[in-house]
């Protein structure tokens, strides 16, 4: 697909071809998925669905499921990438989870997006769909008072089909492995610090999305090459249609009108945050494992850098880090905005 960029095809046509190719690819790869538990009959017409890929996240799952159940997710569609820590069995027991299993390569499946692409195509049509990782927790304005349905109802009334939520890396105050994360615990009791204002933004003309980088990872591991730092822009919540396709992870979508989640005339549109609870005690072992597997973006460059950094005892906290309180704080800092939702 990358070769298309060099051909003299008009952008519009090219995007169309790419979108159809992505959807076709997801449909074709559906055979890689083995259905373990099918509770999709429970899905009612206006339910909000969550789509998740996971691998060996057993410890994190209880809190993750709890968090999103409280927010108003009615059904979880999980793809389990060959876990061996009991998370498969755990998910099978959950009353609102449908589970697929695969041993195909994460990287070869466009970092899991082929699998989720198929599930979104098959089950997401006509629903508000939240596509997240088990370490991402959605926070939006008024999230302590209003369930997710209030947000999706309002988005729908306002004629919007997608909702952006930037990835906000959270980290503990000391070394990552200082406090051990216990199952069921709120990860943000440990990792409650974040970088308030060191994000870079540029616009991607081809897909119309913003490309946000920065945060603690760029500051610590990529300060010599900020361009390679991880992308933080995400659009996880979409009123799905089977003609849509995630282009690269959940960073952007096709058709590109779904990526226009920002105002260019000075106003603020509504947006939320995905609190990223990646940097917990579980991270050190995970980074070693992932490094061996080599299944992550850009040759696991990120993991390589973390691993090297963490070996040296580096930690992410700095004196300018802020302690997380609630969404109001994020809004005051300008990381999220309630836009037109009073």
């Amino acid at each position, binding site marked *: 697909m990358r070769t298309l960029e060099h051909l003299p095809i008009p952008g519009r046509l090219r995007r169309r071809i790419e979108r159809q190719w992505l959807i076709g690819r997801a449909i074709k790869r559906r055979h890689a998925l083995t259905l373990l538990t099918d509770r999709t009959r429970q899905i009612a017409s206006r339910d909000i669905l969550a789509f998740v890929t996971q691998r060996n996240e057993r410890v994190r799952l209880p809190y993750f499921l709890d968090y999103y159940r409280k927010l108003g997710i009615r059904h979880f569609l999980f793809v389990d990438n060959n876990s061996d820590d009991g998370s498969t069995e755990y998910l099978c027991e959950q009353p609102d989870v449908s589970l697929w299993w695969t041993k195909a390569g994460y990287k070869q499946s466009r970092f899991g997006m082929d699998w989720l692409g198929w599930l979104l195509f098959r089950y997401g049509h006509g629903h508000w769909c939240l596509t997240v990782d088990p370490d991402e927790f959605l926070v939006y304005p*008024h999230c302590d*008072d*209003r*369930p997710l*349905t*209030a947000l999706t*109802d*309002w988005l729908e*009334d*306002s004629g919007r089909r997608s909702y*952006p*939520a*930037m990835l906000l890396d959270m980290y503990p105050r000391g070394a990552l492995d200082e406090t051990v994360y216990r199952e069921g615990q709120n990860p943000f009791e440990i990792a409650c610090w974040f*970088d*308030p*204002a*060191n*994000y*870079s*933004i*540029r*616009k991607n003309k081809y897909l119309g999305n*913003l490309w*946000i*980088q*920065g945060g*603690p990872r*760029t*500051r610590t591991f990529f*300060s*010599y*090459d*900020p*361009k390679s730092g991880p992308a933080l*822009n995400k659009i996880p919540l979409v009123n799905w249609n089977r003609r849509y396709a995630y282009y690269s992870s959940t960073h952007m979508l096709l058709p590109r009108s779904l990526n226009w*989640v*920002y*105002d*260019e*005339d*000075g*106003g*603020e*549109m*509504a*947006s939320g945050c995905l609190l990223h609870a990646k940097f917990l005690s579980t991270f050190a072992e995970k980074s070693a494992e992932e490094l061996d597997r080599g299944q992550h973006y850009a040759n696991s460059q990120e993991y390589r850098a973390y691993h090297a950094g963490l070996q040296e005892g580096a930690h992410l906290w*700095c*004196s*300018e*880090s802020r302690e997380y309180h609630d969404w109001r704080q994020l809004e005051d*800092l*300008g*990381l*999220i*905005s*309630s*836009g*037109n*939702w*009073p």
Partner: protein
Amino acid sequence: MIDEVRLGVVLLCHANLPMAARMARIWADGGARVVIHIDAKVPAATADKMKRELSDLPGILYSRRIRCNWGRFSLIEATQHAASQLLEAYPDCTHVYLASGSCLPLRPIADLSAFLAAHPGRDFIESVDTNEVGWVIGGLNEERFTLYFPIDWRKYRKLFDRCVAIQRRLRIRRKLPRGLTPHLGSQWWCLTARTLRAILDDPRRDEYDRFFRRTWIPDESYFQTLARRHSSGIESRSLTFARFDHRGRPYQAYDDHLQVLEEANCFVARKIWPGAARLLEHFPRPADATPDPAPPQPANIERLIARTLSRRILGRPGLYMQSRFPRKDAENGKTSAPYAVFQGMTDIFPDFENWLRDHMPGDVHGHLLGPEMVEFAGRPEIGPGALSSSAVVRDYDPQRFLTALIRVTERMQVFQFSPRDNQELNWFMATDPNAYLFVVTGAWNLPLLDMDMPFDDVRRITAMLQRTEMEQLQVLNSVWVKARVQLWEFNDFIARPQAILDKVLSQIDPDANPVTELPPMRDMTGLPEHLQRLRNSGLHPHLTGDQPITKASHILARNNI
């Protein structure tokens, strides 16, 4: 003088009938006569269910069901039928309130009756003259009356817009019925039975109806216009609290608005999110022994809505984020607070940064855009907002760097600048009204004086820096400059540095103490000779000032340098 108020309510229900049934019960329990219109689009089974639910309230009437299309006359037709039925069935009604099935009464109905009794003979209907004031947000104003609208906006938006555009081009204007002045206003009103009867029984009603049949969104103009003909006392405000966003969509109330809604003391609110269980449980407030006729006080909630609207339309100045990324020159504030940039000072006074820190409030940084590192005050590795001091990271997106720094810090940001630094923000700062730029041109020559370098290298660097500064001056002298820029040539500045610095500091901070002592200056011996040598080598250093070299050295001598 009306002694007693007997309230009648016309309830228009389109969707969410369970909620509408609940509202009907509230009205009926409060002693109001209720006529319900159920949109003909609602399936019969659902409508029957609602009727069954309300069957214990015998006084409730149901009017003829009409298919209502948004923005069309069918809504008026439904209202007319329901209102006529109400007035016929309950001739003792003194007031008729038009509400929707999702309008939630916040105060006891008795309060509303008491309020109406306190204002006898008044018609509460928002009614704004279209010729004079633009009442409409995000839509057509008087053209609602003068154009034809054959196309459904909800279904065919583009076609609708094109149709309007064509009529504008062809200068098509419909004629208004004689004697009508078009008025617009909120579609929710409370009219006295007398006025409503006069409107419904008007001998020219057919003519008006024919006209409004082709008007756009007549529910916001039909009664508003006709009430002006028939009413003897119009109170141009709606008793239903409803506000619209910039696209004309109504704001909804959620559970967390409970406090502010209660303070607003409004009679009826539109519209409530159906899932707001706490609101629905809390309102309407139980009736007191004596009804309270106090008028609504929506100041707080108005403020909340105004703030929301301005955030949506204007945004917070100087903020760049995932959902606000203004294009160039549409920023509504490139930065969030004033900041000052000093150029050339550190070349003349090596310790200028520390000196300035003692002489003004604010965070005084070194060369924030410097080539080696970001020189935050105190030179920490991580600056305010967790900004990295790495020049590479900063140069990846310098504009976000500067705006984030200014936004995240509370005090004024002051930093040093020179042609050696990253020049990418020159246009940005020059066009930013928040920027104070104080520039001494040609000062960068000074550090080159005691460089231990071959003259050829010095000459090359001089040429480069001079070119950079000339380009910058082109920006600062352009007509687009919005910053407060002050330029001094090096010689001018050296002639009276104390007076200039004094003026500069008092500009930034009017309460600043007068400058009594200057920081130590860099040794300038040999500058005239150095400049002459550059001239002799074929380079023309013209940013230091035009004065002849002898005069410059004379000034230097006079300043004991």
